[in-house]
């Protein structure tokens, strides 16, 4: 009986192919949007994780404030770190291989007629070494430059091309905001990050110069820590939290006013943001599935009216209400599943193109496709039920008389 209903459904659907196609368009778009969204979102999460982990699984980031990147409960008033905190960490913790202070601002870099807004990072050679970021032209900072906070800088590849084109920048002087700064080197090109931001969009200067001439204070907004090989990052993290509490004299009842994040946490936080975005977009896309369902209900109601006589004939030869209901319900479900199939194909194609464009991996998840299928079947059942029930409840004589 279900087989017969399936055959009938397919026949009825392809009897009016164009109409059926237009009917399922809403489902197609909904399913395609959800699948494309989730697949690309998943790909970009994977990419973020991979990127962050490529920084090294042995890296810890120390920041003032409880939730470094989330909303600050303390309104951003957490006590800042200073340069001597970096040194304390280095001397107190032999498990730490390097620790580097970091401060950052966005400033306009000017050379001659060219100007270019860029990120200015105050740090020192230790950071460049720990992140494996070689100077490919010119040189790194000298010890005396770092100590005295001389206004020298190393350019990221993008800033170099923007300001100097093909000319050699080493030895030239650029302006960063109001500060004049001698260019001493150029960093190796790194390319785009997981979020599409250009990592070469950067100017690096000694932290002391940054503090004095750019930030106007002695704060360190972030401490970058690399753990020595052979030590567990988790253990070091715990120990560091202990040390920092002591250094910042936090009482046993008080909460931390800083955070130590390892790369796993950082990755999961970043992918968390990504997932929330993906979820929101998918929810919007799911609304079109709902609209698609209403389209199906509409056309099924039309179909029931058009086929009233057929229903009358079926009832006359002995069809029971449930069998008529089943026939129309199966038709609605087949219709919406068809939309699900078309939508899945379209969605995967869109995701493949989108992944290519955003340069994230294309990793279709069979579970997502399956869910989209299940959901479109559900839409068919839910929105097909009302028309099908109407068909099943028709009065046989009136149905037979219907013209």
């Amino acid at each position, binding site marked *: 009986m279900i087989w017969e209903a399936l055959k009938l459904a397919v026949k009825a659907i392809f*009897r009016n192919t164009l109409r059926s196609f237009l009917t399922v368009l809403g489902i197609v778009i909904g399913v395609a949007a959800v699948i494309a969204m989730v697949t690309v979102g998943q790909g970009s999460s994977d990419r973020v994780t991979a990127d962050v982990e490529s920084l090294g699984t042995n890296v810890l980031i120390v920041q003032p404030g409880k939730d470094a990147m989330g909303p600050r409960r303390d309104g951003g008033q957490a006590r800042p770190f200073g340069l001597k905190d970096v040194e304390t960490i280095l001397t107190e913790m032999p498990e730490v291989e390097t620790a580097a202070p970091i401060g950052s601002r966005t400033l306009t870099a000017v050379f001659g007629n060219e100007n270019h807004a860029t990120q200015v990072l105050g740090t020192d050679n230790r950071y460049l070494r720990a992140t494996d970021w070689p100077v490919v032209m010119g040189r790194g900072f000298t010890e005396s430059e770092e100590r005295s906070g001389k206004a020298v800088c190393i350019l990221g590849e993008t800033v170099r091309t923007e300001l100097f084109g093909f000319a050699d920048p080493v030895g030239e002087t650029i302006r960063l905001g109001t500060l004049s700064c001698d260019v001493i080197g150029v960093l190796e090109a790194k390319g785009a990050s997981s979020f599409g931001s250009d990592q070469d969009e950067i100017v690096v200067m000694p932290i002391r110069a940054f503090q004095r001439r750019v930030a106007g204070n002695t704060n360190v907004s972030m401490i970058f820590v690399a753990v020595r090989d052979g030590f567990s990052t988790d253990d070091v993290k715990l120990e560091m939290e202990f040390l920092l509490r002591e250094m910042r004299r936090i009482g046993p009842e008080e909460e931390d006013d800083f955070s130590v994040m390892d790369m796993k946490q950082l990755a999961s936080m970043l992918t968390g943001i990504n997932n929330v975005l993906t979820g929101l977009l998918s929810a919007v896309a799911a609304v079109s599935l709902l609209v698609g369902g209403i389209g199906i209900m509409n056309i099924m109601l039309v179909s029931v009216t058009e086929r009233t006589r057929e229903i009358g004939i079926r009832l006359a030869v002995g069809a029971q209400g449930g069998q008529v209901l089943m026939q129309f319900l199966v038709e609605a479900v087949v219709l919406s599943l068809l939309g699900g199939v078309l939508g899945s194909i379209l969605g995967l194609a869109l995701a493949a193109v989108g992944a290519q464009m955003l340069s994230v991996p294309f990793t279709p998840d069979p579970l997502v496709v399956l869910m989209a299928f299940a959901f479109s079947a559900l839409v068919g059942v839910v929105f097909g039920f009302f028309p099908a029930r109407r068909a099943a409840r028709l009065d*046989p004589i009136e149905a037979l008389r219907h013209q």
Partner: protein
Amino acid sequence: MADTGMPPLIRLEDITRIYGTGEAEVRALDGVSFDIAAGEFLAIMGPSGSGKSTAMNVVGCLDRPTSGHYFFNGVDVAGLTRDQRALLRRHYLGFVFQGFNLLPRTTALENVELPLIYKGMDRTERLHRAREALRLVGLEGREHHDPSELSGGQQQRVAIARALSGAPEVVLADEPTGNLDTKTSLEIMALLVRLRQERNLTIVMVTHEEDMARHADRLIWMVDGKVAHDGPMPDGPLHGAAMVPGVTS
């Protein structure tokens, strides 16, 4: 009524069927009682609007009387649910309509198969039975024609094949020849008579045409929702006045 101890196949007891209420009330059937024995060929005649179709629909379990009792094989149909009445139609009744009522864009074979699908018959058996029924009505070779590709007479043959494919006990035909010319009508009647004999069918037929009614062996004449005459097919003329008692022509 012959007292055999067995209930008749069909018994109508004081059936009324009222459409509408109050001012607009129409008594389509007004106290109709009659029995139909298995194997009978009954013709129902009467003026337009006298309630013939309404009576057929009640007998066919497509409609429910407003009051009165309808016993099929001794079972009170009033006590059956909608689905049980569907089962009764499925297993015991076959319908032939004036307008043929075939499924459009569906081949003759598939139309004839329809009742068998609801009987839950498997495909091979179904095809066999449907072909057999089409052969019986003389439509061999037309199995794969759509109704739109068949003449009126051929369409009605398909409808008869469909009514018979489920091997019903009773065939209900409401003006089966109403849309056909006389020659074709006579062919259809000959077919019904032959099938009745071969299969020992009970046939109830509504008709306006005397020539068609003559093939039956019993006549009910209805007037204004009431049975005005009920008896063996008379030899004399079959017009209204002759049928209504107390009116002499």
